[in-house]
């Protein structure tokens, strides 16, 4: 690699690459910036001067969206649903992954295949039977009815990533632990889990993001306004008659702000985690 680094001068091709990449950055960021700009204007300003900055920052849009759009409640519901889902699915998923990746039993690869089939099955396919079953059990219109399928549908991805991670650990580690008198549970909780922090982060982030953004299941299962999650609440603004752009965008900004925050905190971990051997085809 040293030989490669000796070329200090920037070639024209490099310049061209940077230009292309920068144009793309504009393409990716511009719509988001436009959205924030609109969310701070009045509706009249949006029509009259689409490119101008707001003359007065209309923070009232945000207050309106937060209170009238039930966003506060929806945010809380989303946090509850995603939080519980995250904890349980990470826990169940990494336990199962540990048994698949590290323990010796005949059916382990078969069980792995069984879980991996789950990656190929869209939520939509089980929507109707689940809805029928849950409404018989009185579990529609309650957060628990969302949490259970969310956990289930997060498991395949978690297991896929965590198995890769656990397999990458040197087996001497566990041998040493066993000789020192660890039982299998201690091997898992005290050695495997703490050492796979990056893997847990990546899998956790994917689970969180996926469920935080899930729309269809939440839309079908929850009809009570006070129990809706964020993406469903946003659908109030859908349709040809939605012309109240400023408040709609204030709501959208509020809805995506937590994800952007989480993303900023963990974005580098994602790549590190994926690279560290979590994904191996």
């Amino acid at each position, binding site marked *: 690699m040293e030989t490669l680094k000796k070329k200090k001068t920037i070639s024209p091709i490099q310049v061209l690459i940077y230009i292309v990449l920068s144009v793309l950055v504009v393409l990716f960021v511009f719509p988001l910036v436009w959205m924030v700009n609109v969310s701070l204007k009045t509706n009249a300003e949006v029509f009259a001067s689409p490119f101008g900055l707001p003359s007065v920052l209309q923070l009232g849009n945000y207050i309106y969206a937060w209170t009238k759009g039930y966003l506060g409640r929806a945010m809380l519901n989303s946090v509850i649903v995603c939080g519980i889902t995250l904890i349980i699915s990470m826990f169940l998923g990494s336990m199962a992954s540990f048994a*698949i990746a590290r323990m010796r039993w005949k059916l382990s690869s078969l069980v792995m295949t069984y879980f991996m089939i789950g990656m190929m099955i869209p939520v939509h396919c089980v929507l109707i039977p689940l809805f029928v079953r849950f409404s018989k059990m009185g579990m529609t219109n309650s957060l628990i009815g969302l949490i259970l*399928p969310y956990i289930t549908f997060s498991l395949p991805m978690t297991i896929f990533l965590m198995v890769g991670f656990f397999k990458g650990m040197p087996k001497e580690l566990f041998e040493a632990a066993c000789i020192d008198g660890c039982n299998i549970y201690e091997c898992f909780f005290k050695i495997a889990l703490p050492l796979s922090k990056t893997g847990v982060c990546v899998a956790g982030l994917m689970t969180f993001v996926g469920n935080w953004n899930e729309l269809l299941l939440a839309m079908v299962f929850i009809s009570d306004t006070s129990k809706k999650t964020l993406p469903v609440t946003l659908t109030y603004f859908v349709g040809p008659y939605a012309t109240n752009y400023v408040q709609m965008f204030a709501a959208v900004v509020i809805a995506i702000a937590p994800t952007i925050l989480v993303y900023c905190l963990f974005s580098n971990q994602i*790549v590190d985690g994926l690279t560290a051997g979590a994904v*191996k085809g």
Partner: protein
Amino acid sequence: MDKILRDKKAIIIFIAPAFIMFTLILFVPIIQVFYYSLCDYNALTKPEFIGLENYIDLFTDDETMRIALKNSLFFMIFSAVSQQTIGLILAVLLTNIKRGRNFFKNVYYLPAVLSSAALGLLWAFMFNPRMGINQMLAYFGIEGPMWLSETSGFIVLPMWVIAFVALWQYVGQTMMLYIAQISGISKELYEASYIDGATKVQTFRYLTLPLVKPMMVTSLSLNCIGSLKFFDLVYNMTQGGPNHRTDVLATHLYTQGFQYFKYGYASAISVVLLIMCLIVSFIVNKCIKVETYES
């Protein structure tokens, strides 16, 4: 050591919770959906077995289903081709630049983690006849088309628009998977090819490309399944309209199942969707030959 790792009781404790949940909430409903799809069943009645009638209706008598199938297939092919190509190119470019790699990476990946329901609203505004992009075009004196309500052509304009928005949103994800795979390739291989005098293009063709193939399988199947089950953007941008011209399988399923409450009929759509997903993943896994290399 060996005894500890063969501990049957521990294995059951580790596997059972996930396994039971997975079976009850995923596999049992799958079997049920097959049964429901053979029934006349709505929200008020009990399922009544009618054989293949739902499927016959679906394929002979349902104009919307034909449109939905066409749109979903278009969407899948477009997404697979565009996202895989652009994603891979971006990944290669980003692994070849020296500065600002993390910045570009994070920006391109950002939309993929945002809610597509929220972004659907944003893009519905951008492609509104009197707003967003058309305001921009009007500034240059161009009258923009009715992006989301044009209905002529084999693949209607709104579908192209939605497909491009999906490309915008998810290309970062594909890029990320490829970056992960490329950074896993050993540096010695690149050095060796450099010493042998290979050009960048040759290095890409004979070194990078074969070595990212395993990721191509994963990424392509996730990509195809993701676009077959696509719902959020379509629902929030056009709701399948105008006149069902932008319906895809998932929106059709939703309308039939939860607006008309035709559970049996919607189950048949679910089964079609499921079978398509399985076929696509099967094809992807069979068609991309993965040779294993020593790493």
